[in-house]
């Protein structure tokens, strides 16, 4: 059984501006699975719905975001959870932090700015498990951060006293207190410099390798996925358009969007002109018909404008939603 099964998930932001109602179809027909013991990378340009997808699958969505349809089902081994119907209190008690934890960009919102880091650990452990023995809690927390390669002194600092990289490593330490089945990291290293990014991601990889849990790593930075992810899903305008093991995504992508992304990546040693994708990212309040990529796709055909391409499976867990590929494979 996969750890997580997402079936035809649709989640829209429904807002009213000056009496005109708008719905932003940020997640619009996503189906995917996450397995135990893997790092799955989600890539895609900003506003394509990555964070929205994360909000739904982590159970942290709030209005105006609403799930329209679909299924989000977890199998944690000991118990199963249907994320779209679970009682919020039960979610808080049994799932959050314990089975699913969440590391986001900057992490300031999880760290209370006026309290020392240790207090944030204390708050989380107290609400989810209780602290019968304070001395033991302190020792265990120190041991936990030390094992992750952080100096235990950080526990006595305030968030603003930490560098961005240290803050992210503290957030990862927090996220792993209860050894969750799934760690979701949404742009955890965006805006960090490369050396620190490398350190933070190495820490995340080491934790995954040791605890053999699942990491869902969201970043627009494909070069990061190339070095960290086992599988990569490429998202475009609210949908996964291609998914494959990392080697295949980089060496033999099939979706024209993925191909463009890979081809346009800058790298040291290469000064050749890299075209950026023409056209604008689609407006998800009024997305293009058919294949949502068709207005920007150099290979678009007639049916691309009208028919939504089905996701088809090629070899090696390689899935693609593109009419061109479907026709080539038929």
């Amino acid at each position, binding site marked *: 059984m996969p750890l997580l099964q997402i079936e035809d998930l649709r989640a829209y932001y429904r807002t009213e*501006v000056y009496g005109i109602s708008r719905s932003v179809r940020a997640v619009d027909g996503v189906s995917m699975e996450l397995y135990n013991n893997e790092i799955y990378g989600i890539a*895609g*340009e*900003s*506003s394509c719905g990555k964070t929205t997808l994360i909000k739904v699958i982590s159970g942290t969505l709030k209005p105006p975001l609403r799930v329209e349809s679909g299924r989000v089902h977890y199998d944690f081994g000991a118990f199963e959870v249907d994320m779209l119907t679970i009682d919020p209190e039960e979610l808080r008690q049994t799932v959050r932090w314990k089975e699913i934890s969440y590391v986001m960009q900057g992490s300031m919102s999880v760290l209370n700015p006026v309290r020392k880091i240790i207090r944030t650990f204390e708050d989380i452990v107290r609400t989810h498990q209780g602290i019968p023995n304070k001395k033991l809690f302190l020792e265990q927390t120190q041991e936990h951060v030390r094992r992750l390669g952080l100096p235990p002194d950080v526990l006595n600092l305030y968030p603003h006293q930490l*560098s*961005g*990289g240290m803050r992210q490593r503290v957030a990862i330490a927090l996220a792993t207190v209860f050894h969750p089945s799934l760690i979701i990291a949404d742009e955890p290293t*965006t*805006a*960090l*410099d*490369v*050396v*620190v*990014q*490398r*350190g933070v991601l*190495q820490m995340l*990889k080491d934790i995954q390798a040791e605890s053999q849990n699942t990491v869902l790593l969201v970043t*627009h*930075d*494909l*070069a*990061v996925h*190339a*070095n960290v992810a086992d599988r990569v899903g490429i998202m475009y305008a609210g949908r996964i358009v291609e998914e494959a093991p*990392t*080697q295949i*995504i*980089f*060496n033999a992508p099939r979706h024209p969007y993925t191909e*463009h*992304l*890979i081809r*346009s*990546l*800058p*790298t*040291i*040693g*290469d*000064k050749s002109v*890299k*075209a*950026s*994708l023409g056209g*604008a*990212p689609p*407006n998800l309040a009024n997305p293009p018909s058919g294949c949502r990529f068709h207005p920007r796709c150099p290979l678009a055909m007639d049916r691309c404008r009208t028919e939504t391409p089905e996701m088809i499976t090629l070899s090696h867990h390689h899935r693609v939603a593109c009419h061109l590929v479907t026709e080539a494979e038929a």
Partner: protein
Amino acid sequence: MSASGALLHVDHVTVSFHIGSFIAGGRLMAVNDVSFSLDADRPEIFAIAGESGSGKTTLARVLLHDLDPTQGKVLFEGRDLATIKSRRDAMEFMRKVQPVFQNPFETFSPLRRVEDYLFETAIQFGRAKNRRDAAPIVDEALRLVGLSLDEVRQRYPHELSGGQIQRVSVARALIPKPHLILADEPVSMVDASLRMAIVNLFKKLRDEQKVSVIYITHDLATAYYISDRIAIMLRGYVVESGPVEKVLDNPLHPYTQLLQESVPRPTASEREQWAKHIELGTMEVKEYGRIGCKYAGRCPHVMDVCKQTDPPDVEVEGRTVKCYLYLDDAR
């Protein structure tokens, strides 16, 4: 190149801050004896790269005349920034040197529509008399960055994505038709495909509009792609500088070497190299307070002399390196 013929001449600039910490003797040299020049006749993209807390933004503030250097001076089009006092001179300087900041959400107040900033900029710098005249100018600037006035109309910053709003802030900087754009981490909050759109835009501005760009970044891949020259900063010092191909294809300073190999390569076949474990820097303030080379605490080649006095700037293999390792090669 003479200082007067330069677009920008940065002459031994030092900025020292008083800080509460005694580790560094209560003083922190955020920018330490930095010099470089941009030629007025040859527009170029000059990258400044390095870890956070290296003094890049502090240097940018000096170049934007937002902060006076503790020592040294900056000349823009021959004029010492220290002599800019009147409001009129300040406006004229701002028209010619436009900033683009890292966090566009700090540039744009959440309570105001983003278009208001654009109209305001067009009117403030005399490109239009009123909103109606400004509309085509604003739209033109937005189109240069792949947006349009229709798309941002009535929208507040939080209604735009990080990528969209950063493009709006580049568009805003273009409105006064500046001679120099100083972009401080302009793409670090923007995704890869838009990154290329923005950096290609800087290239286009250099090649077609003859605008020079100072591109401050920690993204060495885009720095390599667009820049002519690069300066690598570490704790206030420029530790290596020169043509970008020389510095990044074959870095000589041990710190540049670490930076360069830490850039994740966009291919799935070089994972091992990148996964090699690294030592992260200790506390920033400690490194700033270090006597001698700021990298000595992490450097795999550290020698006794490195911990005693500042390394010299050595000219070697077509670039300048601040490191004792190359002292002999220089002669």
